[in-house]
């Protein structure tokens, strides 16, 4: 299926002095999806986001937005929630929200009109006349999220959007992100939380040390990293189960519970689920059977975990 890309980076290079932060990065963000931008600390994620949002210019390479080179400042179509984010502490909540929306190109009336529903959705109406410094950190995070999305950006870039939120608020924000996606917003989601990547993202790019080391759909990636492991839950004798496997399969792990047994089976030589299941049902009562795909977390650790992480200030 040919995907339409809203934003593409081509051969992007960025240097800080002699230090090459981004090395020939290519990245394509499909329209209307939640796209995961992953990478360890100091990999260059923030710098990449900054070049994509025109905060800093790349030293070489091209950024294509909706098929055309990104030249003019497109801030009104972008919404960016940086990882390190803050507000003017002395300003009032409403004043601040209006100001930041106006800076995005809305006029005052529009800004008010668009902010109101978000203040309702996030239960923040009563904060309007309070000073920002009176809000708790979580409240400020909520306000920042509302301000980032209020001007209805076409492309929303969220850098660790859940940090600082309790589980209840995390769930709320997650649902709002999904709603926005369903309304047609493209979302770039940068995080270290791999569980949320599996849950939300269709496609990802993983960068490490300024290089794009992995791109593709989450499903394809997980399949390609599959080690042909199968998860079987059954009732019956362990010995019978072991005998059924033959030489093509091998038990990786087996755990007995009072009711049933859980086993992880490793297939050799490209043997598939069909053969395994055919043999097994003749000997034991199979309760469940599925291929065990590696988690994004496993893949992440596999690819970058062995490398020593350098932590740089971002």
């Amino acid at each position, binding site marked *: 299926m040919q995907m339409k890309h809203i934003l593409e980076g081509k051969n992007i290079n960025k240097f800080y002095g002699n230090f090459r932060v981004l090395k020939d990065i290519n990245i394509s963000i499909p329209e209307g999806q939640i796209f995961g931008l992953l990478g360890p600390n100091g990999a260059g994620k923030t710098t990449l986001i900054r070049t994509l*949002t*025109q905060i800093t210019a790349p030293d070489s390479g091209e950024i294509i937005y909706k098929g055309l080179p990104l030249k003019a400042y497109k801030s009104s179509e*972008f919404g*960016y929630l*940086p990882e*390190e984010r803050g507000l003017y502490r002395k300003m009032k909540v409403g004043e601040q929200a209006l100001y930041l929306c106006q*800076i*995005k*190109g809305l006029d005052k009336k529009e800004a008010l009109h668009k902010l109101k529903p978000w203040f309702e959705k996030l239960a923040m109406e009563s904060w309007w006349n309070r000073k920002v410094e009176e809000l708790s950190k979580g409240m400020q995070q909520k306000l920042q999220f509302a301000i980032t999305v209020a001007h209805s950006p076409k492309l929303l870039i969220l850098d660790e959007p859940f940090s600082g939120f309790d589980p209840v608020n995390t769930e709320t924000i997650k649902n709002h992100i999904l709603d926005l996606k369903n309304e047609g917003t493209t979302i770039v989601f940068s995080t270290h939380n791999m569980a949320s990547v599996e849950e939300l993202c269709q496609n990802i790019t993983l960068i490490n040390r300024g290089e794009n080391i992995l791109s593709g759909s989450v499903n394809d990636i997980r399949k390609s990293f599959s080690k042909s492991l199968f998860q079987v839950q059954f009732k019956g004798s362990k010995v019978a189960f072991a005998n059924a496997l033959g030489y093509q399969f091998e038990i990786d792990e087996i755990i007995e519970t009072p009711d049933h047994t859980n086993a992880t089976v490793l297939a050799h030589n490209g043997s598939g689920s069909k053969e395994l299941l055919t043999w097994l049902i003749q000997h034991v009562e199979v309760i469940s059977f599925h291929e065990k795909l590696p988690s994004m977390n496993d893949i992440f650790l596999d690819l970058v975990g062995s490398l020593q992480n350098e932590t740089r*200030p971002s």
Partner: protein
Amino acid sequence: MSANKIGLIIKREYFTRVRKKSFILMSVLGPLIMAGVLTFALWTSLEQSEDQKILVIDDNYPFFESLEGSSKLTYNVMDISLSKGEALLEISDYTALLYLPKNILQSKSGQLIFKKQPSIKVQRQIEQNIQQYLELSKLKEFDISESDYRRLRAPFNLLTFQFKGTGNEAEETNMLPAIVGLVFGILIYFFIFMYSVQVMRGVIEEKTNRIIEVMISSVKPFQLMMGKIIGVGAVGLTQFALWILLTITLAIGGQFLLLGNKYDASQINAPMTELVKEQVEQEQTIKLNQLSQEDNLFNKIRRINFPVMIAVFIFYFLGGYLLYSALMAAVGSAVDNDTDTQQFIFPITFPLLLAYILSFNVFENPSSDMAVWLSIIPLTSPVIMMIRVAIGIESADMWQVYLSMALLIGSFLGAVWMSGKIYRVGILMYGKKPSIREILKWLNY
């Protein structure tokens, strides 16, 4: 659209500052202090008074023959030439020589050449005596009506001259423009310092608040920096305008309180109140006019060319402020907190501090080589040129003013350009404090 954004930034920077309590307090306290100083100076000059014995040279002799003073101020009217009068002044115990020239009715001015500067009170009294004398003599001539009265009014200026012996030209001794220039120069120093530091603080605040990245995803760093600089500068101009307005109001008020009672124009107005009895209200306004016109110190202040002074002040404040605040914005962007700024602030503001310290020398010797150079070099020119302009620059030296202005404009454009480059990189840098060498490298990022 970008102009619109920069406007929004200016608006925010401006209004968050002028709404602060500290701004309102400063706006009121500043003029109170200034007016207090002025009033105090006036009051002390009024208090001291010695007996004055004045030799009057009347070119229209015997027109002023019956001029009368008071017990402390005696006149001796003579029909001699000015040079003879000066010779007489030198050898006699006259304290001063009052010269009333032939064309006094047209020029409406005379000259007082003194040995020791007479107090303002004395000068005022001489003026009043003569004005009254002239008015009385005119009243005899004219038919009396309100319109006649207006025509009869004869404002009189007293120019004081230090007597330097016969044959030497007496030197006018009005120090006031220089003092006002010094005050304006010092004001420029404080304004530039105060407001460029505010720009730096504002930049640091945005950086430590971590709002900077949100902001520059919406506007260009240069817009944000210029918006801040212009917004804060507008706050400075507002403060200045408020100070001027309030100072004038307070000074006029103070003048009334101080002089209104002592010199209530009863003696002057005695003959006139009869004439305009029926027009009490109008007479009130006339009294007001007279009072404010007759006071000598205020006359002198009025002779200072305030429109030029204020225009020069605004130019040099804005030029100097743009130059320094751009540099300060760069400093603010390079560091994470106030304490790290010291290392950079000192070298940057040193020329400004130097200008402030040397301004007293320039005040005394405004055309020395040092004064000329300092008034041309952009980092010191705002303070120094202000003082020189106030004292007065000869038309042959006007090129210095133009050169100084051109250099100031050129250097603030340069500073804004350079700071914009540093700012753009600096605002996104956190962590260790960069060295000056590293900061200069950012110019090429």
